[in-house]
């Protein structure tokens, strides 16, 4: 059983819902990103989604793009990543899932990446541009190491794809709220409910969390009324960019209060 799933089920039973917070590794620097992530965990996020900066972040909106570009131009390298992750996991007990586009993992070596991830205390991987059909090596090694693997369910996914995603995900399933990129939206696409319903209809026991466009406490509450957690990123980065760790902590508390 995945610790992430146990945590999400426990929150659900307590009538409390989950806040999953994204922050990019290496933004603005390696050391500063560790402090920001630890502050987010200590201020109330239930799961940390730690992003690996990538040159072609096709799922991300402007806020995350600019932040990850800054991380890369400040010298972030994959070779620094596992030390950074270890530093975070040694200081907090919050599960840390790593979000990465597939190419850096493929170039590093899938098995090597998985073993280093496990050794650094990571809970698993969120893979936005990997479909389960192409994930053979990752399915095998994540089973062996009991790592979470989060695949995407989207408004354009067929029921067959939702079945496959539900069957092969562990930790949680990432329900993409809208056919678009990350970033705050005033109205959460009604499609999010449809995606969650489609996944839930598979009768999976894996929790379903919604991401893309969530930036307010009200939205966090709304999402948690029909799903198992809300995934938030851009608004945290904006808070950090504008007011450092203190403002970041404030926004985390505000959004967690929305539960």
């Amino acid at each position, binding site marked *: 059983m995945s610790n992430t799933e146990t945590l999400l089920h426990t929150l659900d039973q307590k009538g409390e819902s989950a806040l999953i917070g994204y922050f990019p590794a290496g933004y603005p620097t390696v050391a500063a990103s560790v402090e920001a992530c630890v502050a987010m965990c200590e201020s109330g996020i239930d799961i940390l989604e730690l992003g690996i900066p*990538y*040159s*072609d972040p*096709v799922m991300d909106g402007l806020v995350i793009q600019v932040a990850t570009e800054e991380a*890369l131009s400040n010298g972030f*390298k*994959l070779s620094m990543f596992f030390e950074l992750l270890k530093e975070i996991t040694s200081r907090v007990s919050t599960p840390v899932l790593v979000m990465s*586009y*597939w*190419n*850096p*993992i*493929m*170039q*590093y070596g899938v098995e090597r990446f998985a073993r280093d991830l496990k050794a650094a205390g990571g809970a698993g991987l969120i893979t936005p*541009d990997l479909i389960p059909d*192409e994930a053979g090596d990752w399915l095998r090694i994540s089973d062996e190491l009991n790592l979470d693997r989060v695949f995407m369910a989207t408004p354009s996914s067929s029921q067959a794809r939702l079945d496959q995603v539900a069957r092969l995900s562990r930790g949680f399933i990432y329900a993409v709220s809208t056919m678009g990129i990350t970033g705050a939206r005033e109205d959460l696409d009604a499609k999010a409910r449809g995606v969650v319903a489609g996944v839930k209809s598979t009768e999976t026991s894996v929790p379903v969390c919604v991401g893309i466009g969530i930036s307010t406490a009200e939205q966090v509450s709304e999402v948690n009324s029909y799903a198992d957690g809300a995934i938030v990123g851009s608004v945290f980065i904006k808070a950090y960019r504008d007011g450092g760790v203190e403002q970041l902590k404030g926004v985390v508390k505000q959004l967690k209060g929305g539960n």
Partner: protein
Amino acid sequence: MRHAATLSKGKVGVLHGAKSYMLQDEDGQTVESHSISAGLDYPGVGPEHSWLKDLQRAQYFGISDDEAMQALKALSQTEGIIPAIETAHALAGVIKYGSTLKPGSSVLINLSGRGDKDMETVGKYFGFLG
């Protein structure tokens, strides 16, 4: 020197949802490409070409900006056909490698696009436009 010779100098990776040859560093970060042709100025390449290369059904050669532009000028002046700059790379390939063929060989060129869309780039390159 920056280039877009993905098939001859790239490495297999995943870019924009497709597994193919691409220009990248050791972390898998995309390396910025350069080509005078907008359609070729991309660090990846269509996966079909990668597959044909690996099957050894096709061979791929790099062509410089200058070689392509001279080929564009040659076809325009001799045939009155203005090729796209992308296509001009194939023409330059024929000019460059055609001499290795047996006399009397036939060469088929796919004139894949027209160059009227490229007039501004062409004008600047040859100095007709500022």
